[in-house]
């Protein structure tokens, strides 16, 4: 097993492990963090505008928007003039916390330090606070921190810690960089990783032929095995060919996005317990969102809404008919995507006033998925003729962290003019930011021209970026990743929702079947015994 070193913690904080002092510091820390969250909520909540608590620095009396608080006595001071440092030094204290970020500063290290028990308190407090401030109550299970008990402790005792990262290059099997780039994005996807590494689809127990879920399971097993050297995804490729012979087989160059969608459909099709609607398979629980389309009749103001499931969002880089020279950002693309769009006169007949009329259509995101995938439409096919296809080379800027609140149905509705005769628009508070925050974890890039190009992929593990160019894997940087010509980018929700655990119906059905089977066997055995007894009696 490969050795891996944990980052060095703060020795001064480690000295306090198990001491009463640490317990009281944790208590103070919880107070500081919840105080900040409550204040933020009050500032963001338009319905409750009252004076906010504003502590002042004990030394310079300036009001603090971001107070630093001593964890050993609640002394509050500023960072800018180093008055908190003065306090720590004078009082013989060592630790203070930044109320805004929850970061802990150690005077002896002269640095910010990290400690699991503090991190857990921060996480627990912020999740609990966001639950308290969320208007949609009752849908979610309240957060409970996991603390190992009886059975867990026994299991943990004999357990060996394994590195939770795997990095292997993938060999190019003849223009298969499209496949390699997408597979790397799957491998870096925390939801897919947790699913396959926890043996939810075991290829050794699966009897299906040409099963894409088995291919995923084998891929994760290989990449996270700790072995080095590149891997040839041969059986993955052959299963892909068998599954989608028309679109993806052969040695021609393929579109990475097309493969992405085909692979998701195949994984879904080979998942246990899949359904046609609101499916609970790994693909749909990971990628599935809901897109709402509102068509508004300009004549009578009637709005017709429809919703459609979506696995990803495809965005135009350049506005139609506009000059190419502009600052393209992901947010700008999304704003354009959720702008009202005029429909042609003959395209729409209003269901209410019954007449063909001018109408506008507006898209918004009704339900955000845990993993949000974007495709930038770089390849344009103005006509059916292949030679007319062209590639949009313009760079698109995308952030490492993204807040999706302004593109949700709730926010779009709040910003739209009020429907006629209904008074003021319903500006409801959409809930804390933590419900809308996403972090970038993979980017698939395309280099070169439309008919002679190359795909590669950047993925993130914690705060480190890696570049995957087929079998070549190199350590990279955030800057390099964000500067690349992105074709697809993948974001994961920072705080996942969870609901109360319930056994999936297909598991229940299987268990009921097993019980019945046992019953039948018992009956059969009883009958056999009766026959034997009868035989014995006759003798």
């Amino acid at each position, binding site marked *: 097993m490969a050795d891996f070193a944990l980052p060095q913690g703060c020795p001064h904080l480690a000295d306090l492990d198990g001491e009463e002092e640490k317990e009281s510091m944790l208590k103070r820390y919880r107070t500081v963090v919840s105080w900040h969250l409550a*204040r*933020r909520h*009050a*500032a*963001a909540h338009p319905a409750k*505008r009252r*004076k*906010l608590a*504003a502590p*002042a620095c004990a030394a310079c*009396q*300036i*009001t*603090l*928007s971001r107070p630093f608080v001593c964890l050993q006595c609640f002394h509050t001071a500023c960072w800018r003039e*180093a008055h908190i440092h003065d306090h720590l030094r004078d009082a013989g204290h060592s630790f203070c916390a930044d109320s805004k970020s929850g970061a802990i*500063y150690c005077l002896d290290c*002269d*640095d*910010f330090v990290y400690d699991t028990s503090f991190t857990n308190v921060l996480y627990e407090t912020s999740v609990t606070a966001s639950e308290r401030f969320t208007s949609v109550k009752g849908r979610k299970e309240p957060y409970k921190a996991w603390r190992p008990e009886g059975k867990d402790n026994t299991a943990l005792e004999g357990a060996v810690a394994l590195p939770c990262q795997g990095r292997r290059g993938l060999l190019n099997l003849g223009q298969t960089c499209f496949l390699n780039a997408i597979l790397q994005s799957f491998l870096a996807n925390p939801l897919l990783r947790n699913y396959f590494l926890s043996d939810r689809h075991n290829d050794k127990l699966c009897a299906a032929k040409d099963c894409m879920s088995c291919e995923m399971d084998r891929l994760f097993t290989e990449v996270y095995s700790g072995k080095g050297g590149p891997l040839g995804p041969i059986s993955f490729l052959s299963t892909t060919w068998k599954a989608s012979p028309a679109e993806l087989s052969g040695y021609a160059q393929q579109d990475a996005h097309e493969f992405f969608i085909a692979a998701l459909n195949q994984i879904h099709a080979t998942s246990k317990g899949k359904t046609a609607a609101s499916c609970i398979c790994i693909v749909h629980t990971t990628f599935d969102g809901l897109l709402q389309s509102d068509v508004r009749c300009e004549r009578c103001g009637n709005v017709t809404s429809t919703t459609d499931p979506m696995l990803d969002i495809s965005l135009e880089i350049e506005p139609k008919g506009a000059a190419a020279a502009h600052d393209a*950002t992901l*947010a700008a693309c999304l704003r354009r995507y959720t702008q009202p769009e005029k429909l042609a006169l003959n395209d729409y007949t209003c269901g209410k006033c019954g007449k063909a009329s001018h109408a506008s259509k507006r898209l918004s995101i009704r339900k955000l998925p845990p993993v949000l995938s974007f495709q930038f439409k770089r390849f344009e096919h103005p006509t059916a003729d292949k030679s007319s296809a062209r590639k949009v080379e313009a760079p698109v*800027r995308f*952030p*490492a*962290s993204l*807040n999706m609140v302004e593109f949700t149905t709730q926010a779009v509705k709040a910003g739209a003019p009020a429907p006629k005769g209904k008074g003021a628009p319903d500006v409801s508070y959409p809930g804390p930011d933590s419900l809308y925050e996403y972090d970038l974890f993979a980017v698939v890039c395309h280099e070169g021209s439309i008919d002679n190009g190359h795909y590669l992929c950047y993925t993130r593990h914690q*705060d480190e970026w890696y570049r995957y160019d087929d079998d070549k894997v190199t350590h990279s*940087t*955030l*800057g390099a990743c*964000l500067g690349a010509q992105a074709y697809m980018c993948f974001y994961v929700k920072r705080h996942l929702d969870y609901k109360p655990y319930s056994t999936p119906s297909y598991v229940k059905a299987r268990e009921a079947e097993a019980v019945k089977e046992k019953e039948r066997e018992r009956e059969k055995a009883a009958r056999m015994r009766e026959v034997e007894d009868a035989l014995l009696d006759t003798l």
Partner: protein
Amino acid sequence: MPRKDAGKDALYAAISRRMIESGEWERISDLLLKRLNEAGWVDQVHHESKETARRADSTPVRQLLEQLKPHAESTVPPAVRQEVLAVIRQYLDSQIER
């Protein structure tokens, strides 16, 4: 300290207190952060800080801040600076003579 500066400081302290108590400070900071993030500034500074820290063996955080601050401040996009300054000015105007 000259008297004029003391007056200015007191005014600054009073305004910042008012902004913080009314929640305006938080809202303007949020706006600033949102604009800086979309402009790529946040990621650029994150990248530079991380790579600077990686190059040095161990740099105390305050030294690192000193080192990065001038460049970070000078690379704030002018459009973002103007927009946020306008919001602050508007707030100040609304507070005067009331």
